[in-house]
């Protein structure tokens, strides 16, 4: 099997091609999609810890809320940010 070096995913409805081995977080950041989410009081937020502990990077990947810093990019992924102010986890 040839090594796959690129992944095509959809970020907020836009198709982007990124190197395999990167995180969904990096894909979002490199696409300039900031803020990543809104906090309970409506503040703009972005990733903090980069290693899975703070949950600030969470977003919806293929209809599941995940920590994007722990999520590798895969072909065909659909990524949406959590921009509504609510208790969504």
């Amino acid at each position: 099997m040839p090594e796959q070096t690129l992944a095509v995913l959809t970020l907020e409805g836009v198709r982007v091609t990124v190197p395999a081995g990167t995180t969904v977080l990096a894909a979002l950041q490199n696409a300039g999609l900031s803020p990543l989410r809104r906090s309970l009081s409506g503040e703009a937020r972005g990733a903090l810890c980069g290693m899975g502990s703070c949950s600030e990077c969470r977003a919806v990947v293929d209809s599941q809320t995940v920590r994007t810093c722990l999520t590798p990019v895969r072909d065909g992924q659909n990524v949406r940010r959590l921009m509504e102010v609510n208790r969504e986890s």
Partner: protein
Amino acid sequence: MNPEWDAIVVGAGPAGLMAALTAAQGGLRVLLLDAQPTPGGQIWRGAAAGQRGAAGDLLRDVASHPGITVLSGAEVVAAEAGKSHILTVTSSAGLTHIHAARVILATGATERFLPFDGWTLPGVVGAGGLQAMSKGGLDVRGKRVVVAGSGPLLLAVAAGLRQKGARVLAVAEQAGLPGVAAFGVAAARLPGKATEALELAAGLRGVPYWADCAVVRASGQDQLQSVTLRRGRREVTLACDYLAVGFGLMPETRVAALLGCSLDAQGAVEVNVWQATSVSGIYAAGEVCGIGGVDGALLEGFVAGCAASGQIERLRDAPRRAEIQRQFQSVLERSFALRPDRLPTPSPATIVCRCEDVRHGQLQGFTNWTAAKLQTRCGMGACQGRVCGPTTETLYGWRFTGVRAPLAPLPLSQLLAQPTVLGPP
């Protein structure tokens, strides 16, 4: 009887990799778990098996050893010590129960964050955090970065980011110059460290290093635009894209806590000379036992792997080497001890708990974690106090008692499913 592994190693950084390899060489069937998508831990994140150097060698040896099964993207959500220890693990394979005769904890460390005005702005990130993000593919080329907080990690982060093309404007350290110098001298005495220090210094040529420096505030509208630092009596404001800020590393002891392992006064897992914890059959190695860097972690991983597999004859030299590491560790602790007058001061409106947006002013009146949590929801959000728990220890002197299962957020599908049992091949 459930199928049982001889040993589970939790964490695939240097300590965990070394522990797994050593235990497998002693004949144990080992399962190596790690939360990241690939093994290596934070320091060797993105390193490839077989690449030149210690990381590549160890990653290759672990990957090719028939006695080791590696499960990446796997997080421990619950743990119970017993005759056979049981870990509950979430991964893309779903929720699984894993039984093992021995557990080696190599869960590493996380960064300490302290709140100040503007620290919740996008663009304010951990120091180790920005390094992790850049290793995860974040493009930092041409980005203006201020690195701040405390500890030798700041230097490594600054050098690493620079190498990736970032413009590091300054490194702002809260510790004083004498402490930093004492650390430098101790580090240079360790075998092999002098060259490393020189390389680091070369990587940082031209970057101002400010000791005695406090972070005052971050400013911007929905995005970081500048950071204000205090040097002596003067405030300095730097326009930047990222503020990479962390106040040292803390042992990541949550799994250890669930298993009932005793912690020491510094909050690290207590171990004896064989890296055995207070709970029978459970060992710990690396930064979970105290912050000391990669060489100490490798050594402790080796000792834990030998001890867990009964290879006592291989341990001849270990106590002496461990002593050298421990001395280094205590210099490190003293050199970068947090100084209250150099730490950021939150205002009443500064958010302390980022998940629930609980502010400093709401928390100041409380005397302990539990009361504050019940009244304000501090620590009850998505991160379950992983960020604000330790913060409140530093700010208010509370003891953070919020570690409970599940340790990681579980997808609904896994909450409802019956866990399967993952046994050895």
